[in-house]
């Protein structure tokens, strides 16, 4: 079940979009629960990050869409924001709030369904993944987004995470296979980097969280391609 918030001050448009969501469910089988709001003020009142996708009208009476988006983004880093507007130039600055998509009014069903499909894909990518790592005295459950990178050393693997470093037995390749669903890539044969933690790429060096790692020449091309795939697919 994907939770949608529909923030739109025109009741007619709101109704139309609700109809589109139902039509999408009939077409693709994806179930949604939709909450309606008539203004930006309404959704922000006692806001909790429970939504997966928020459709936001740009022009609203009390609080406009851009400002609403800014405040939602401050409270919720993961939610997918999509603007609804009849003025394209109001949405072009959407990157500032991580909203890279918008639909133009009057909204045709096909454009809306494509946008929704993309958002649904993004939501499923955002789902948390946990990695069970064997450590001394049991298994350690690790949220993959917290990992900076993995380093292989003989038959052991060093983990560098937001919560410190630790070592586990095993081969880097085994962990790489377990992390296949997450955005990880090798920047050289010994390092497996969490692409979501990359802060910059300079000549032969990648910054991952507080660390700087060498990018080897043979791995450079595939690493950049993986990074492009991650950033291009993410867009937040």
């Amino acid at each position: 079940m994907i939770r949608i918030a529909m923030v739109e001050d025109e009741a007619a448009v709101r109704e139309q979009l609700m109809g589109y969501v139902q039509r999408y469910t009939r077409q693709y089988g994806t179930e949604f629960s939709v909450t309606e709001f008539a203004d930006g003020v309404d959704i922000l009142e006692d806001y909790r990050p429970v939504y997966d996708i928020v459709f936001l009208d740009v022009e609203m009476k009390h609080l406009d869409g851009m400002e609403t988006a800014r405040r939602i983004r401050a409270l919720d880093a993961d939610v997918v924001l999509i603007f609804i507007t009849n003025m394209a130039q109001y949405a072009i600055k959407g990157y500032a709030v991580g909203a890279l998509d918008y639909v133009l009014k009057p909204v045709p069903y096909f454009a809306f369904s494509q946008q929704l499909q993309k958002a649904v894909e993004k939501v499923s990518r955002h789902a948390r993944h946990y990695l069970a790592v064997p450590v001394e005295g049991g298994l350690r459950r690790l949220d993959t987004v917290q990992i900076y990178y993995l380093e292989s050393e003989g038959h052991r693997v060093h983990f560098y995470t937001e919560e410190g470093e630790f070592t586990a037995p095993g081969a880097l390749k085994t962990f790489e296979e377990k992390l296949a669903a997450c955005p990880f890539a090798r920047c050289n044969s010994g390092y497996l980097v969490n692409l979501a933690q990359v802060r910059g790429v300079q000549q032969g060096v990648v910054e991952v969280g507080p660390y700087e790692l060498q990018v080897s020449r043979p791995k450079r091309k595939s690493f950049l391609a993986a990074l492009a795939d991650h950033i291009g697919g993410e867009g937040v």
Partner: protein
Amino acid sequence: MTALPNIPRLYTALAECMAILLYAWPLPRRFGKRPTIVLTGGWAVALSGFLHATGGVPLAWWIPCMAAAIGLSYLYLWASRDIRWLEAGYVCARAFILAELAASVEWQLHCALFPHRGGGDGLALLLLAVVDGVLYGTVFWLERRRPSPTGKLTVSNKAALVAVVMAAMVFAVSNLLFLGDGEVNMSIYYIRTLVDFCGVLILTIQHDQLRESALHSELEAMDEVLHRQYEQYKRSKEGIKLINSRYHELKIQIANIRAERDQAKQDAALARMESGIRQYEAENKTGNPVLDTLLTAKSMECQEQGINMTSVADGQWLGFLSTREICTLVGVPLDNAVESLTAEPDPEKRLLRVAIYAQSGCVMLRFENYCAAPVALGPDGLPVRSAHGGYDLRGVQAAARQHGGTMTVKWENSWFTVRILLPIPEKESM
């Protein structure tokens, strides 16, 4: 005539160091300032030490020693500057021949003026300073004075190979006479200087040609942007004329709508007004003037073709790209998408999405267009010939690679996507 002494090795080392530094100066550094200075110091000491130590080797060893010295300079260039290995060869070849000329001229004058003084003599050192100063000063001034295209001058592999072969030839010819058993005399020095001078001349002319062709293509790209701007200007002029007549029309239309009692007719009239207004919404402000022009021109074209184009673009990160590069990186994928979309029969499905944004220290340019038919990709990851749109994305890929970035293309769920990832340079170097 008495046998003349050959050039002191430290003189040669000085000439080499100065020539390499002269040409390396404008090139972008591979590392920060401090490591570069340390690397430069280390290389200069190593080169001087090596040349000094191998000063007395027999003739058979002389050529391997020279080759090793050149190799050292080459490694320094490649390691300290952000250039490809063939480009480093190109710079190294130019610097080496210039160093040969400088050392040769200086020593010829030395031998002509005071053949019996040694290399460490005060007067000899003064002559060294004057000759090297004048020669390198002139070359430096000539290099700086010539206009250079924005960004780095790209040296093709062919040009680099030609330069290296030319330098090797010049070096061989200029030193051929030393290999004979005959006594070294002034005429040999004279010939050496002359051959080296020719070498410098040839390589400089080649460099100038490269620079000119780069400037030329830059100019062509500028021309294209100007052309687009002119078209934009023509459009806005037409637009203003249209607006003026529309004011009048709108007034009449509003009066008519007010008077109209039928809801359906009122709605239809309002829809007509709305579509009339939409035409003037196409202006883009992204923070980069070249991108603004491109996006505005393209979104107007899309409107004419019935393509629904949406763009979210942060242009402020594109400052490190030249006009031509932005035209290539944005214009070609857009043209390609538009061409593919015009073939789509259902106007509701003519969708084009553009997103340009910064993330993780990189800038991402993403172009997506609806395309129902699968696009076959070749082994190089690009669409096979004319499989999608008619435009060649190879140039886009080359432009992305130029900046250490990458371009990937994919087709998935009826959407064709071009993604360009470019690392944002930490700072514009030197």
